[in-house]
């Protein structure tokens, strides 16, 4: 299930992140988990997808979080954290023409939509300057 409204959350043992702009932030001690967590922020077409679910009985950061395999959040600003340092960033093709940054999370992860896609589209705000691939000119005849 894909969720894109502000406040939607997903939690799982492992997650895969995808975005155009990834930011890793300094760690903090989560007051609920009583552990060190490694925060991140995804900007510009951000996705956070559960690739491995929690074992039964695992306490969630938020009771309303979606936790099924494949559940993902999608937004223009997604923040979250993992309980282990983020995997190394990988730049790969996300579409036929555009690349994106991919990051793997493990050890437990949480992601939350801060700015949803619908809200950004409603504002008709230019999210990014897209560099279009040059059209190949083919003379007539």
């Amino acid at each position, binding site marked *: 299930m894909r969720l894109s*409204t*502000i*406040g939607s959350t997903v939690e799982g043992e492992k997650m895969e992140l995808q975005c155009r702009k990834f930011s*890793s*932030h*300094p*760690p*903090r*001690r*989560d*007051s609920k988990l009583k552990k*060190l967590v490694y*925060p991140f*922020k995804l900007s510009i077409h951000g996705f956070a997808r559960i690739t491995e679910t929690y074992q039964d009985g695992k306490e969630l950061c938020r009771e309303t979080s979606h936790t099924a395999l494949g559940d993902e959040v999608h937004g223009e*600003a997604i*923040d979250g954290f993992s309980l282990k*340092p983020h995997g*190394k*960033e990988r730049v790969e093709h996300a579409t036929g023409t555009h690349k994106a940054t991919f990051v793997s999370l493990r050890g437990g992860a949480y992601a*939350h939509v*801060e*700015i949803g896609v619908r*809200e950004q589209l409603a*504002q008709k705000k230019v999210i990014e300057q897209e560099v279009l691939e040059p059209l190949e000119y083919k003379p007539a005849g």
Partner: protein
Amino acid sequence: MDALALTSPKTTSVDELLSATPYPERDYIVRISTNQETKSTSMQLYSTGVVAARLNNYAAAMTRDINLLKSVIHWQHRRLDYGSIYNAYLMDQITEEEFETAVEQFAYEPQNVDPDVLAADASRVFELTEIPYEPSDLADLFQCEHANMMEAVKMVSAAHQEYAKMLPSGD
């Protein structure tokens, strides 16, 4: 500013003048100005207490603004310092274990902060920087719980449309 304005020509004594003023403390700052066109001189009295209070309020507001901006600078500097260690980890200059040890210095425990206090500071940070930081960033700046900052953002959303966009629909 409250003042008792007198325009010449008028001859009066200081005692007569002060007895007519509305300020009982009898401690004043006097302003004398002349107008070359009308060939007149006017004198205005201001309560010293009022002038001092207004200057002190201005100084306090400036001090608060400077402290907020210093907080923003230190917060960004902390992120830059962390970023250099993170980059070293990405480039395999340090192991994951070394990275975990090195970044622990940046860790803090978020505090439970009154949203009313956060709302005033978050609003002022936006007015000073003109950057609509997201609630998670503001929570990191003020080292508070994310829930506290969401409440604060809700409070200031009426004054700042940029924050209204960050609220869940229905708020």
